[in-house]
């Protein structure tokens, strides 16, 4: 195996940055869209604090549709929409749109599950103190579910790192594109290995960071199960 350090140095720093940039922004917007969506899904379901069956069914179906698309197909299907928002369908910035649209329904489901897991007796106690739905969401559900939600966001980030490998289709750059174009298409084993190592390190860092945050909250609240 030829140790193509020169090629690696020319390619990898920029593409590593592209991956981080894309994934960070797509996560941010994905959470911005997905979190409120998840809240609405959680509280409008049957037996929850503000049941609205028709609305819940509609949103749930939309989320399912979003989750059903294989990412590569989502990329292509969103081209007109991406063009409308960014002005072009190609490049790194344009890739953020389909990544966000892939992330949002995923975040919504995770948030919905996290909120539904909050002890219903606590919600009941809040109700009998005269809380309205907004107060229950902001003062009870979200704070109580915070560690769970943070775990979910960490999962989303890792998921997006995986999805970002496909954006080479639209010239989005990133480590995935390098791995496919040079590692796979041009059989450059050295590049392939270095990009995979970088991706592993990236995922490890994200996962570690997420775990650290969740642990420190649990420590503060004294809800850490294992030392």
């Amino acid at each position, binding site marked *: 195996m030829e140790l193509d350090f020169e090629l690696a140095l020319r390619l990898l720093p920029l593409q590593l940055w592209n991956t981080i940039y894309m994934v960070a922004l797509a996560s941010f917007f994905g959470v911005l869209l997905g979190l409120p969506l998840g809240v609405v899904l959680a509280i409008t379901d049957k037996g929850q604090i503000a049941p609205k069956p028709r609305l819940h069914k509609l949103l749930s179906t939309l989320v399912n549709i979003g989750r059903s698309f294989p990412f590569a197909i989502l990329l292509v299907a969103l081209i007109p929409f991406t063009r409308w928002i960014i002005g072009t369908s*190609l490049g790194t910035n344009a890739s953020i749109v389909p990544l966000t649209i892939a992330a949002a329904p995923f975040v919504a489901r995770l948030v919905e599950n996290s909120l539904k897991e909050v002890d219903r007796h606590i919600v009941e106690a809040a109700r009998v103190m005269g809380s309205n739905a907004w107060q229950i969401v902001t003062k009870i559900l979200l704070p109580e579910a915070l560690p769970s939600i943070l775990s979910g966001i960490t999962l989303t980030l890792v998921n997006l790192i995986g999805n970002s490998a496909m954006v080479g*289709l639209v010239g989005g750059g990133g480590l995935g594109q390098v791995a496919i174009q040079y590692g796979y298409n041009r059989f450059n084993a050295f590049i392939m290995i270095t990009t995979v190592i970088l991706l592993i390190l990236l995922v490890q860092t994200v996962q570690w960071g997420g775990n650290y945050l969740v642990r420190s909250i649990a420590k503060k609240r004294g809800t850490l199960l294992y030392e």
Partner: protein
Amino acid sequence: MNRSNKRLLPILFAAIAAIFPGCSSKNSAQSELKVAASPVPHAQLLEFIKPDLKAKGIELVIITTDDYNMPNRALSEKEVDANFFQHIPFMEEQIEQFHYKMESLAKIELEPMGIYSKKIGSLNDLPLNGVIAIPNDPTNEARALLLLQKQGIIELDDASDLTATVLDISSNPKNLKILEVDAAMIPRSLNDVDAAAINTNYALEARLSPSNDALALEDQDSPYANVIAIRTGEESRSDLEALKEAMTSDKMRDYINQKYKGAIIPAF
């Protein structure tokens, strides 16, 4: 083996041959010839001569695919008898990497790669800091860069490098951004770039006409003629010889010229 077993064996073989037709070595009526091909124009050309082969007792089975790796793998694993989708540089690359034992049966046609644009009418109008999209797979990326070089838009470190990438551009006077994009995706994104290099098969699928719409085209000297590829040593097979004859006939030449009007040129 006792006497009763001996009589059983031919019956067994006949039964198997009847259930699995492929097991019989020669069906006296028709023999099958399986060819993997890209849809446009390769499969179309094969369809054209299918009746001619049928008259010779050869049933041509055409398996279409857009994938660039499957046809050679299928050929090597004897799932098909020939394929028709690639040019020689690509084939040689695949041979080097996968150690396939294959060769070109005949050069058939050339699809000149073209530069297309929805924004400008001539390559001289390329704006400063404009964007050009090119395919991101090794062979076609080099092909596009060589075409751009021939049109005087950029210069490469090694002017005849068939494995050039954007990293090998030595001169880019208009400071153009050369974006590497999946080859099949480029036609969809024409609106987003100032110009793009597109393979003819994808251009045709996107209803672009190389002769009318392209701002520039590869010429006949191009090393990228598409060939029918077969496994090494099989060139004297009668069905493959019939295929070669049909595909390089005058009838085929006329057909290509008439149907594709210069978008595709015969390479024989």
